[in-house]
């Protein structure tokens, strides 16, 4: 695995996870409350039944000889309470609902006011009917023999019938009748005025109560209640649909999140397995992370076979540090270890990709240079390494200078066996040491 790609994949996966978590949070925080809408719908149902009860009680007034206004007042009060409760509940719901609520509140207040007027009118109306009935009957008794006055009484009786019909919103045709009392005596005149007064009162109140009734059975009121339910259902459906979308989005985001986490875990496990496998196999050097002596011996024979087939050369560079023992003694083992790590890193920078580096002893390294066309290239690489490593190393504010001695052996020119190849390189390295260190020597028969 490439050194740069590894952290890049890590960063990308972490970013994906963070993005998924943020996305989920963002969507969830946008969720609207459907409970409020549901409760409001239930409240509208309550409100409609309260409205029906109110209208029912209003109509029931006429089916009772002695109407009992407590019941209709109670129904009206219940309706107002339910309405206030609804307005309170739905105050958080956006949209045209609020306007309907305000309008409904206004209409309800109007209805309450008109009902109060209506009740006072019909109390008088109903009383006037009873009163006129008794009055006309007693006048009939008194003036049985006065034909002229009886005609007036009959006309008055007929007027009462017209108003009875009018009270039911039935308009009967008005006929010309006796509306003057020229030959009446004083008592008759009094009675005449009294009857006419009550007839007039009756007519006024019936007209007023019919007017009030038309006003408070406002169709707009019922329409608004229906509209309210429609609006709420619509709001509910919209919010619910939004929730469905958000839910599916959250599902997708969660799936991505799970897959990413699993991939990340798998990747970590794979890295762990690789490192662990290498450690178990005992083919890496724990200090520098380079292959060790064992791996060199494992690799060398197959590589030789490969080069044998391709007919190319394989060079073995045997590197030994000059005076490493001295550095250990003067600066301590810590510095020595660090120096080895730094040198390994420099080797790594200056070999070609296909070449392998091994640490086979304390301060001994081997570099295998593969697919070589000519010995010159191997020597050039060795010299390059030599030059690069001769620059001072800065370790814990201390400058360390170190030189290398490098011996080179070549397959297949020098030998065909792995052991010989290593030994020849070793010998060449010793030659370099004996020739004054800090140089490269190629093995030669001598």
């Amino acid at each position, binding site marked *: 695995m490439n050194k740069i790609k590894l952290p890049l994949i890590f960063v990308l996966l972490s970013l994906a996870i963070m993005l998924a978590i943020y996305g989920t949070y963002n969507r969830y925080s946008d969720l609207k409350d459907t409970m409020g809408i549901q409760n409001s719908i239930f409240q509208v*149902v309550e409100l409609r039944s309260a409205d029906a009860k109110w209208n029912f009680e209003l109509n029931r007034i006429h089916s009772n*000889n002695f109407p009992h*206004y407590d019941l209709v007042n109670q129904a009206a009060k219940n309706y107002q309470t339910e309405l206030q409760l609804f307005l309170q509940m739905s105050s958080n719901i956006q949209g045209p609902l609020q306007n309907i609520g305000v309008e409904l509140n206004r209409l309800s207040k109007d209805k309450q006011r008109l009902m109060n007027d209506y009740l*006072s009118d019909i109390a008088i109306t109903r009383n006037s009917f009873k*009163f006129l009935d008794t009055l006309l009957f007693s006048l009939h008794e008194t003036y049985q023999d006065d034909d002229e006055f009886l005609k007036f009484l009959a006309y008055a009786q007929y007027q009462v019938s017209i108003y009875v019909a009018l009270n039911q919103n039935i308009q009967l045709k008005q006929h010309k009748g006796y509306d003057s009392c020229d030959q009446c005596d004083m008592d008759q005149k009094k009675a005449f005025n009294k009857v006419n007064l009550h007839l007039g009162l009756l007519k006024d109140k019936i007209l007023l109560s019919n007017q009030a009734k038309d006003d408070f059975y406002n169709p707009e009121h019922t329409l608004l209640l229906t509209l309210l339910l429609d609006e709420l259902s619509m709001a509910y459906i919209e919010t619910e649909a939004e929730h469905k979308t958000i839910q599916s989005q959250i599902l997708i985001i969660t799936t991505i999140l799970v897959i990413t986490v699993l991939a990340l875990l798998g990747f970590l496990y794979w890295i762990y397995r690789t490192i662990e496998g290498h450690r178990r196999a005992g083919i890496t050097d724990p200090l520098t992370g380079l292959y060790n002596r064992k791996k060199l011996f494992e690799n060398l024979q197959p590589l030789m076979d490969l080069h044998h087939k391709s007919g190319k050369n394989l060079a073995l560079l045997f590197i030994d540090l000059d005076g490493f023992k001295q550095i250990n003694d003067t600066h301590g083992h810590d510095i020595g270890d660090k120096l080895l790590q730094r040198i390994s890193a420099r080797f790594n920078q200056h070999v070609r990709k296909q070449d392998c580096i091994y640490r086979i002893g304390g301060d001994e390294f081997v570099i295998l240079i593969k697919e070589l066309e000519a010995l010159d290239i191997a020597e050039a690489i060795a010299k390059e390494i030599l030059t690069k490593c001769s620059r001072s190393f800065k370790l814990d504010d201390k400058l360390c200078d170190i030189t290398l001695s490098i011996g080179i052996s070549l397959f297949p020119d020098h030998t065909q066996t792995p052991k010989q190849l290593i030994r020849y390189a070793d010998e060449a390295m010793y030659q370099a040491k004996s020739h004054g260190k800090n140089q490269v020597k190629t093995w030669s028969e001598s």
Partner: protein
Amino acid sequence: MILFAKQLCSKSLALIFILISFGVHNSWANEPISPIFPAENLDQDKFELGKALFKDTRLSLNNDTSCHTCHDLSMGGGDKLKIRENVATNSPTIFNTSKNFHVGWRGQFESLGHHLGGVLANPKVMGTNWPRAVTSLKADTSFTPKFRKAYQGEISQETIFDAILYFETNLIVPSKFDEYLLGNEQAISQTAKYGYEKFKDYGCISCHQGANVGGNLFQSLGVVAPYMGEDGKYRAKKLRVPSLRNVALTAPYLHDGSVDSLESMIRIMAQYQLGQTLTNTEIRQIKAFLESLNSQIEPAAYE
């Protein structure tokens, strides 16, 4: 949506039950006046605390007025005055007020709580200084055990208000006439029974009906003929029809307290609202009926 359907089902079931129950007759179901009953499951501690606060003058601005000042429980819940200084109208009775649907002569208060809040806040009536009232009640050791029993010892504006409202709401005292409605023929005199019949026949009942014999309707005085008052100063307005319970105890009458005796009030009402002239016997009978509407107040309970 299933929940919604369930709700609808239970609604329609309830409606059917209501409709069925209308068919069931009670003994007073055909009477225009329905009997009242004393409050059930009364929290006696709260009620007594409310009564004590009802009479406590520390709730007023100058420590000289309590609810009891205008609504004297020993005077039928009124104050026997024409109009009290600073107040616009005659004080109606406090007994059975929770059976009214509109509170105040103009019906300007929707409920007892609304009225209580208005009166306590009005500087012309009570003008309660709440911090001072709460402090002085906290200092009064006689109130401590009462508040402990009723409100776990919490003395605040809310608990004081609640206690008074609780007392007013549950101050329901039935009369002899309620016993009569419930089947006790001997509960009221023969004269009162005649009076009740006249009350119905002449049509007084058109407005004075329901549990509180009024209090659920608006009407102006002068339906048949304009009423100017005995001194010609009365100005008719559309006002709440007052409850006739305890009417015999709460003279003077009308919202301005301009009529002194019940007899003349009955006569005026018959003349201007119904166009009837009553004989003295009829007036006496109707008066007997109205007296049977007096709450049976035990003097010891409301001293």
